[in-house]
């Protein structure tokens, strides 16, 4: 088992962890954080798997992808946070209503 | 596009375009609307006249537009379609005049006449359809165009009737669609051909073909009001009288019956459907419908309901004529397609006149109405006797050929059905006549409107008189050259000639 593979496994672990948090936590901030953790997990997987052949220089393409991904994730987080504030302003709670609309 | 290809389109357009324009007219522009309507109707009649002349002399009018790869939108004028086109365009003219009179002063007329024209367009499309998919297309269009007319009054009752109508017709349309698609996957073509296009199929498909036949006929039977699919028709009588006329005589039920004729003749072919063994059950269903409709009509006090059940019974004659599977009975069925329309429209016009002039809706309110409205009731009487099949009116000719055709192919039981139906017809129609002509009037009418010296407005009176006269003429002049009978024989020759 190469270290790269280990990293990848850690990435998957982060992903799962984030997913778990996304499911169980009601507060929106936690959910947003969970999403961010999941994103980090995916990026970790991408970066780790870039070393595809033992010893050779890692493939640069996944790194470019990760950078793009991070940019996307940052903007998404910004939007999510702004929305969260709006939700709090409108409903008084930073949680999602569990009942559907009447 | 040359003239021959454009003519079927023009026939469609002659009602479609006025209809579309009428939608955008304001309520007050009565004159423009009426002019447009009548101009469209007359123009259509003239075009149809040209078309008949051409078809009789062997011209081919055919419009072909691609619809799907391998499937065309095909409009074609053949002898059978001309029968239906002529019927609907003549009756459209008459009904338009009637509707103009009937709806005078009521709201939403632009909408009404718009959909009215759309309905006729769909009917003519059904008639001119040259393949099954085109037929399905216009058939569904007809369903949709009739719905706003049924709910026109906007009452809760009308909405319920509309819902019932839709439940039946949309389900029927669905069955038809399934049958059509299935047929297409088996045969690879849907184009109507004299004597059908299926007989060449492999014998292993025969069971599928039987099932498809059932699907198609059930889908069409909804509109043709075969039992047990007739439930919508009596309910739909809440619609204004011109709409009832349209439903019962010009468009909807006729489209169903016509479709069955098409399926039996031009999809399956007479011989082939007989060999599949599907015609006898169809005949039995038709016979049951004839008797059942008449039985139910006996017990209706509401005049239009009684007429509606009578339609259930009468339209099944057409199907019976086709299902008996003989050339003579076929003539009977085909002429009844026209005869029933003319007779039933007379009756509905008269019922509408009674409702509009005197507020009469029930049979029990009709005592002595013959003295108040003699012309209307004369037309009604002619219609009734035609329905019973009294010579020399149109209904007699139909029954004559049906009975003769049944004897011709050794299905003697049919004449007992005819006799029983005539008996029942007499039983539910003659008391109306008796009450109208011979009983003393009750004194006041439910809601009388005065029209001066005349018994009612001329636009209401003229249409039933015209159609009553047609009823008489169709019977008396049945054998005349270029008459309806000749045309029906011309059609059946195609199907049956060796």
């Amino acid at each position, binding site marked *: 088992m190469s270290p790269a593979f280990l990293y990848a496994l850690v990435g998957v672990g982060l992903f799962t962890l984030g*997913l778990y948090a*996304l*499911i*169980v936590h*009601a507060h929106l901030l936690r959910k947003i954080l969970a999403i961010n953790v999941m994103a980090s997990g995916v990026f970790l997987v991408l970066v780790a798997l870039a070393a595809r052949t033992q010893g050779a220089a890692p493939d640069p393409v996944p790194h470019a992808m990760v950078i793009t991904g991070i940019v996307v994730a940052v903007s998404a987080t910004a939007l999510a946070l702004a929305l969260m504030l709006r939700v709090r302003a409108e409903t008084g709670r930073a949680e*999602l209503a*569990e*009942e*559907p609309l009447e | 596009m040359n003239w021959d290809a454009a003519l079927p389109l023009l026939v469609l357009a002659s009602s479609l375009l006025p209809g579309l324009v009428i939608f955008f007219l304001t309520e007050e522009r009565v004159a423009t609307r009426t002019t447009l309507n009548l101009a469209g109707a007359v123009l259509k009649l003239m075009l149809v006249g040209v078309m008949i002349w051409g078809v009789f002399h062997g011209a081919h009018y055919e419009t072909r537009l691609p619809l799907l790869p391998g499937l065309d939108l095909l409009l074609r004028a053949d002898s059978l379609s001309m029968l239906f086109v002529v019927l609907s365009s003549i009756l459209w003219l008459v009904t338009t005049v009637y509707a103009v009179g009937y709806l005078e002063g009521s709201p939403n007329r632009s909408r009404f006449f718009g959909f009215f024209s759309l309905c006729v367009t769909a009917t003519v499309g059904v008639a001119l359809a040259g393949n099954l998919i085109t037929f399905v297309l216009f058939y569904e269009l007809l369903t949709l165009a009739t719905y706003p007319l049924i709910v026109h009054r906007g009452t809760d009752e009308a909405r319920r009737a509309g819902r019932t109508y839709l439940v039946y017709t949309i389900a029927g349309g669905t069955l038809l669609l399934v049958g059509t698609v299935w047929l297409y996957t088996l045969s690879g073509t849907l184009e109507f051909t004299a004597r059908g296009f299926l007989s060449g199929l492999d014998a292993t498909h025969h069971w599928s073909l039987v099932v498809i036949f059932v699907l198609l006929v059930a889908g069409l039977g909804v509109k043709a009001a075969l039992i047990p699919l007739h439930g919508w028709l009596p309910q739909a009588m809440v619609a204004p009288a011109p709409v009832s006329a349209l439903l019962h005589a010009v468009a909807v039920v006729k489209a169903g019956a016509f479709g069955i004729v098409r399926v039996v003749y031009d999809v399956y072919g007479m011989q082939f459907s007989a060999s599949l063994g599907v015609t006898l059950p169809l005949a039995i269903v038709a016979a049951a419908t004839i008797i059942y409709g008449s039985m139910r009509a*006996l*017990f209706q006090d509401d005049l239009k309901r009684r007429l509606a059940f009578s339609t259930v019974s009468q339209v099944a004659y057409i199907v019976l004529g086709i299902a008996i599977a003989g050339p003579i009975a076929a003539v009977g069925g085909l002429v009844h397609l026209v005869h029933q329309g003319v007779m039933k429209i007379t009756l509905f016009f008269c019922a509408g006149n009674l409702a509009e002039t005197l507020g009469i809706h029930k049979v029990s309110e009709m005592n002595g109405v013959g003295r108040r409205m*003699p012309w209307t009731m004369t037309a009604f009487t002619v219609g009734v*006797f035609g329905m019973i*099949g*009294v*010579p*020399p009116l149109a209904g*007699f*000719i139909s*029954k*004559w050929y049906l*009975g*003769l055709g049944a*004897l*011709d192919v050794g299905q003697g039981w049919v*004449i007992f059905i*005819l*006799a029983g139906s*005539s*008996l029942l017809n*007499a039983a539910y129609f*003659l008391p109306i006549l*008796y009450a109208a*002509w*011979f009983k003393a009037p009750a004194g006041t009418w439910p809601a009388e409107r005065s029209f001066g010296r005349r018994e009612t407005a001329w636009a209401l009176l003229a249409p039933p008189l015209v159609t009553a006269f047609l009823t008489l003429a169709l*019977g*008396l*002049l*049945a*054998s*005349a*050259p270029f*008459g309806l009978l000749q045309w029906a024989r011309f059609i059946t020759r195609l199907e049956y000639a060796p």
Partner: protein
Amino acid sequence: MNTVLSALLLILAPLLPLLLAFPALRSRLPRPCHIALLPALILLTVPPGVSIDLPWLLLGTGLGIDDGAGRLLLAMSVLIWALAASLLHTAKGQPADDRLTTCFLLTLAGNLGAILATDLVGFFTFSVLMGYGFYALLVAGGDEGARRAARVYLVFLILADLALFEALLIAAATAKDLGFESVRQAMAQSASPGLYLSMVLAGFALKAGVWPLHVWLLPAFRSSRPAVALLLGAVPVAIALLGLVRWLPLGEVSLPALGLVIQAMGVAAMLYAILAGAKRASLTRLPAYAAIFITGLFTTVLGMGLSDPEVWNRQGNLACFLIVSLGFGVAILVAANGWLQARCQYSALPEKQADDSSPWFERWSVAVTRWAAQMGTDTLPRLRAAWLANVDRCLRRIRIWQRTLDGSERFLQRWAYAVTLFLLLGIVVVFVGALSWI
């Protein structure tokens, strides 16, 4: 020229009364009923044997007048109708009724047309017109008793027309064309004329009121106004008998058994007429019994003719004379009766209505109607009630379903459940996708 004229007359004879039946067309004419008879009257003077083909009319028909029975009958009809037309509007206390005239003229047209018809369809058409016209005449001109008689007559008429229609169909299926002569021959050669014969016999027996189907005749004679009663013998009965002569393959077939039965019926009718007439001798009933008697006589002759063609060929004309004599005899009796009654104030016989209020022959129809109405109102609500209960059950079930649906939708909308479900689905997709590989 002569042929054109006679053809015109042939057409006009039924057509003129038909046209004049429209009130608007006759409103300015003096004595329209008499004018309507004129073409027929002139037709009597035309040399015999004229006929005209009308292939475009109906199913192809024709009109003509033959030498023997037709001419005689036409003469009789013209006479009696003229008489009746004179009586129509002169009865005391009866205002001139426009509807009555219309019915009268319609019936007249039917009657003349039936006599002049040269084929089955024409005869049938005109006789139907005559039948309904006569029904209307009975109803329009009569009192309650006449109406009741008319109602029975109508039922018989409809049944008779149905039977005759069937016979017509059989004839059309057998014969080449529907002229009287060719049908007669075709039927004589037909392998199984039984159905045709019985239909024709039944149909015309119903129309003619042959015993035991005479039930409508008695009240009709008793209660209708004189002009109508005068016509009773000459119109429905006589034309029905004429129909028998024209439609049956008499003189061509030999059916001893059927003939014997018919003869027996005829004799029985005569006996009945004599017995009943003697028992309840009254001037008002006499014409009816006379009619029954003569019909019985006619039936006997017919039965003889059926059993032995030879007899018919030799003495067939007797039947026609019988018909004519029936018309005249009845007419004379009625006229006498009317004259007598006119002297002692014709009234609608109110005291006689009490015991006639529901004669037995009408009770069955009432019973059937009542039964049918019960069928319609009783069983249907019961059915409907059961149906409603069913619908209610269905609705309740639907409501349960709806609640379940709503509940599950709410469940699906919960974030935690939804995301878990998503995860599950992902796993299922991987699993299912990998299935083939494993």
